[in-house]
């Protein structure tokens, strides 16, 4: 077995912590969320302060009011002082979903602005939270939509094999992603991608959840899209796997919007049909069958939409270049082209390439 980070959620967690994006792990009780987070902090050399949100009062996060010389100050608790003095660290908010709504409200500023009472924690402090799904915690509350919107939601799965291995041979040390200096430069690129996507799907720029069950999950808003862009850049810079990158994006903006964005990214990779028709020699067939099909179908559809003789011949040249690697995919597109032959266009030489496979498939009844 290659020594790869087998758990995409752990990989995604590392990226989010390294990028200092507030992150929330959802998972059943006893599945090792807490120990994974502590191990991550230790591996990164960050002091870890654990605060169990459910047994705290709002004043633990909003600051305890004390009267000093006739005015009220909001004194931060000791854990916040320690983090501020260390200058960096990991604030771990455990049991977030069992925190009563008033405590969740007090946490809003802590999570996003790192403000605890009158004290502001340094930017180098990462905020990580863990929660049990409300169905699994007897006294659980759904996360309020504003709090949910400030976090990247990751689902913590347990892999039975990893548990077995860990019990027998000790738990694997977490792999800490290394972000090279200046990785923030990539954020510009990913922001551009997000912006381009939102031009196409403006409805997804801000879509607050409508039903109560979805309210506790990530949902698209300008803040979460910014978060997604940041996470995407960090995942790219850390060289993390596609699975972790996809989990981070879906965790930030929610499942529905995240999947649409990912699908759009995949489509972005396909060649532009008009460019290919202008220069058939530049066409390179995508390796994966379904992508090759999508590319060739788009080209055939572009020709069928405006079948001039020149475009038609160019289309056949593209298919001819693909016939060797993927005769079946190209033949599907060839059938579309054959049906839209412009008047007077000469039969292209490529058409003979497809006769054998069409005959074998029983599609050439003479």
């Amino acid at each position, binding site marked *: 077995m290659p020594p790869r980070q087998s758990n995409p959620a752990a990989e995604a967690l590392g990226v989010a912590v390294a990028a200092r994006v507030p992150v929330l792990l959802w998972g059943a009780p006893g599945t090792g969320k807490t120990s994974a987070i502590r191990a991550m902090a230790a591996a990164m050399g960050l002091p870890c302060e654990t605060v169990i949100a459910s047994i705290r009062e709002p004043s633990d996060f909003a600051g305890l009011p004390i009267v000093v010389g006739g005015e009220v100050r909001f004194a931060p608790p000791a854990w916040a002082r320690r983090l501020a003095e260390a200058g960096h660290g990991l604030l771990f908010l455990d049991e977030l979903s069992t925190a009563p709504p008033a405590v969740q409200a007090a946490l809003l500023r802590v999570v996003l602005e790192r403000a605890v009472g009158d004290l502001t924690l340094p930017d180098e402090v990462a905020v990580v939270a863990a929660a049990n799904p409300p169905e699994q915690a007897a*006294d659980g509350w759904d996360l309020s939509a504003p709090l949910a919107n400030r976090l990247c939601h990751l689902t913590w799965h347990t892999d039975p094999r990893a548990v077995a291995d860990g019990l027998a041979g000790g738990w694997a040390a977490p792999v800490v992603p290394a972000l090279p200096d200046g990785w923030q430069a990539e954020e510009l690129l990913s922001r551009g991608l997000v912006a381009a996507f939102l031009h196409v799907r403006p409805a997804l720029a801000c879509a607050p959840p409508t039903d*109560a069950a979805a*309210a506790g999950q990530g949902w698209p808003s300008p803040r979460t899209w910014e978060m997604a862009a940041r996470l995407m850049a960090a995942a790219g810079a850390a060289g993390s796997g596609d699975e972790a990158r996809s989990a981070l994006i879906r965790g930030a903006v929610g499942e529905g919007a995240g999947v649409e964005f990912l699908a759009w990214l995949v489509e972005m990779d396909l060649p532009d049909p008009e460019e290919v028709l202008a220069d058939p020699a530049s066409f390179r067939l995508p390796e994966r069958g379904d992508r090759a099909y999508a590319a060739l179908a788009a080209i055939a559809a572009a020709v069928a939409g405006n079948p001039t003789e020149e475009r038609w011949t160019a289309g056949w040249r593209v298919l001819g270049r693909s016939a060797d690697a993927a005769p079946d995919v190209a033949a599907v597109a060839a059938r579309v082209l054959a049906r839209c032959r412009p008047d007077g266009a000469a039969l292209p030489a490529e058409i003979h390439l497809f006769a054998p496979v069409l005959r074998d498939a029983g599609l050439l009844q003479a």
Partner: protein
Amino acid sequence: MTERGIDGLAAARLWAATRFPYLASGVFGAAVIPSPGSATVSVDESWRMRADPELTADWTAAQLGSVLIHHVCHLLRSHGERAQAVTTGPEEARAWVRAADAEINDDLVPAGLDLPGQPILPRHLGAEDGLLAEQYFEHVRVREASGRRSGSWLDCGSGADGVPRPGEGPGGLPGWQADLLKRQVAQDVLSYARQAGTVPAGLLRWAEQTLNPKVDWRRLLAAELRRAVAQVAGAVDYSYRRPSRRSAVAGDVVLPALRRPVPEVAVVCDTSGSMNDDLLAMVLAEVEGLLRALGLARQVRVLACDTAVAPAQRVTSARQVQLIGGGGTDMGAGIAAAVALRPRPAVTVVLTDGYTPWPAQAPKGTRVVVGLLGAQAPDAPGWARAVRVDPELPGDGVR
């Protein structure tokens, strides 16, 4: 690419993509690997198919193409994942594959799937068409318990039964890309259905469910109830009735303490003639279970209501509720009666089929959660939080 490819694979795919154009992305998205000596064509959950060239050499393009389509459908319908929810052990996994085959074949064979051998159809299992694999699975189990075998087909692989096979190492399509591919196929199915209109109904249902997954009403109802209770109860409010435990450090400032009032809950049941009693009992039991989980079982009062309201019954179990009534409906009367109760309920749950007049404004002093029973129920008023309860929708284990 490989030393000995699979003869006629290109022709088979072409046949499949031409005959079932809406599944073309799936057919081309799956990798086909020659696997001499395996004596079958199988598929794993990473979209890799393994085919024995000896076996497929005798098949026509249509037959091999049909097997490819069949396996793609195993993947589209997440049979491997679903198998893990209902089967234990290899014997049951084999029974599951028969059920899964029936779910695919019941509308694709009539649509022109030309499988080699004798494909399993629902009638071989003693079932009617159009069911889910979980339902077919029950039929298979009943038949096998009485010693009757229901057809046999080659091993479909881990993509159909979720049991990992040796040699299925890492690689193939990663999970999230497989999800995107599934959505792509679902979109193809829907757009094809819109243009040409000839997509098997089961596949169309699958596509709609994939693109717009309907959330289980139990989850929605639970979330709405928790939210209503949380907004009333919980530690939402500070109270000066009892000083804070932190007063010691605050000097002269009197700090409030957190108080957790226990909310009363009233359930108003529509008992008019148009109601479905079984459904009402099911939803009532669900509400009761949820409240019990919130620690509120004792605070529940149930009112039966049509146009008049029966006196409130304090119940400890859904079975104790007597549904009296019939005839017309006015939920406004039921809500008014709930608000008049003392102590006043902080949360009122209304279970109705929706064919009722509603008050124009939200009642004062109570939050209303409406359970709309039945898929055709008219909408609830805007001031109430409504959950649509559709018994046709997936409960456990079905997605």
